[in-house]
């Protein structure tokens, strides 16, 4: 193990190298570009042994990974925002075909207008494609998540998207422990090296089916996705034993009897955590790391406790006509509790900076009559 000061994007590349991905294909986009630049440097320097395939668009990048994964290769792509949106058709396909592809996504706002600030609406608008989704809060967590994602993808036979805030994490330098290859090999065994096409047993996969077969496949995939909650639990515990770092599906930090709990995902959790460790605060933080499948039971257990009176969900994303997307999922998870907490929303979509001052103001501010969302712009 060596400790290095690296960015979130470099952490992705380190994770891909250590996972011995066999095929990497991507197209540059801000703020993801340095993921591919770092992998290209590693490839040129002989550190990364997989195929590095430059393509002309994100659609082709994921298409290449789909082909590679069909042939049994461990495949990876990286993107952000408009690039992710451009992949959309194949994002569905990869999940339907049960291909264990791993993709990293640096969360960035989607136009119009053009904007490169951090916003989670890009990946959250792929919510219903069937990909498993993780949201990271530190550079170390990004590196570890890539390695865990391959293990998770190959165990569940489902693709995994590893998300992290553009700039706030993609371009932030901080210390990260880079594990030794042999340690990673024990956690994530090398993929089998087999020929792409078996000429003696040719196959045609995923041709046309009727409604009953389609319905059956969807129900089977639903069960496989639900089973991920237990698989994830096992994988994160094994990872913690081997590497000493714990990345549970939901993370609770703060006093055990806190009456107010702030809920968020991604890098903002660290701002909240640091804010709450200051003098005179009594609130707690609940960070949602696993978004699909949604760990509703884990969240109910924390937020449904009798002492929790108030929940504030901080969303850096928005679903027009509904509100923050994590907030909606949290409210659904709390549905049916006899005496659930009051849930309010703080929205910082568009990449607004969540500062300790803004947090303090948001916690004190009374919501304007008739408004269900506290828009951060009104607190600046």
């Amino acid at each position, binding site marked *: 193990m060596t400790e290095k*000061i690296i960015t979130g994007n470099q952490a992705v590349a380190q994770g891909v190298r250590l996972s011995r991905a066999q095929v990497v294909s991507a197209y540059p986009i801000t703020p993801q570009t340095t993921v591919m630049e770092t992998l290209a440097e590693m490839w040129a320097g002989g550190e990364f042994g997989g195929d590095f395939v430059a393509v002309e668009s994100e659609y082709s990048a994921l298409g290449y990974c789909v082909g590679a994964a069909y042939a049994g290769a461990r495949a990876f792509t990286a993107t952000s925002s408009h690039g992710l949106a451009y992949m959309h058709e194949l994002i569905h396909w990869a999940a339907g075909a049960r291909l264990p592809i791993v993709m990293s996504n640096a969360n960035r706002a989607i136009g119009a207008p053009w904007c490169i600030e951090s916003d989670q609406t890009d990946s959250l608008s792929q919510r219903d494609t069937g990909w498993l989704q993780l949201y990271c809060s530190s550079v170390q967590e990004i590196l570890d998540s890539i390695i865990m994602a391959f293990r998770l993808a190959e165990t569940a036979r489902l693709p995994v998207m590893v998300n992290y805030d553009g700039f*706030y994490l993609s*371009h932030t*330098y901080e210390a990260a422990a880079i594990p030794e290859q042999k340690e990673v090999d024990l956690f994530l065994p090398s993929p089998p090296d087999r020929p792409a096409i078996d000429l003696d047993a040719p196959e045609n996969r995923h041709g046309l089916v009727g409604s009953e077969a389609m319905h059956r496949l969807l129900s089977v995939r639903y069960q496989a996705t639900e089973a991920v909650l237990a698989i994830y639990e096992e994988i994160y515990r094994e990872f913690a034993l081997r590497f000493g770092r714990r990345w549970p599906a939901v993370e609770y930090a703060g006093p055990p009897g806190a009456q107010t709990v702030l809920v968020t995902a991604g890098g903002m959790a660290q701002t909240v*955590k*640091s804010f709450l460790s200051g003098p005179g605060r009594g609130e707690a933080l609940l960070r949602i790391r696993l978004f699909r499948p949604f760990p509703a039971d884990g969240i109910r257990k924390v937020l449904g406790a009798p002492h929790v009176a108030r929940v504030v969900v901080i969303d850096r994303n928005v679903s027009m006509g509904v509100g923050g997307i994590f907030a909606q999922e949290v409210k659904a998870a709390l549905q049916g509790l006899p005496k659930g907490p009051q849930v309010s929303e703080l929205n910082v979509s568009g990449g607004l900076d969540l500062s300790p001052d803004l947090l303090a103001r948001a916690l004190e501010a009374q919501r304007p009559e008739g408004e269900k969302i506290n828009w951060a712009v009104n607190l600046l």
Partner: protein
Amino acid sequence: MVNTNGLVEIRLHGRGGQGVVFAGTAIAEAAHREGKYVQSFGIYGAERRGAPVTAFVRVGDRPEMPRCQIQRPDIVVAFDAKLPREQVLKGLKPGGLLLLNCASEKDAWSFCNGRSFEVWRLDASGIAARHGLGSVGIPIINTVMLGALVRVSGVATLDSLLAVLKEKIPRNTGQNLMAAEAGFAEVRELECYAAAL
């Protein structure tokens, strides 16, 4: 220069092409070598030479640090006294510290008129030019500023900084190391009597 919760927050202001983000990372690495927790990042729109760039550095005793821009810095570093003054000085804590690259003491004084913080000045452009860094008229000053910054902030020693620079700078390494040492040696606190000049 440490605030109550053991965290020092530094904001660097410069222009695209001056190596501001590199400087933020180098100071963070130097502090990390001494066992401190660090975080460093920059903000910029589309990357353009000459456009204002801001970088943020946090150095602390504990891993918990906010992950947001620094709006109330303990230390501000200005690579250029022609940067928008209000933006550069915004939120600088009373009792905080400004490190300014400025050839004239008089200009430095007018830049931070009405101050409630310490001001340290050096002619980083002159020092860089003397060490042959950058091209004629466009000196590259980031290593000079780094030398001065370790001295005034105390977040890392000069030795740690020089070790980091040796590792990270592949070309003109010798000149850059000497320039950092010169920045360390030549930075001076702006004295009150300068106002009378």
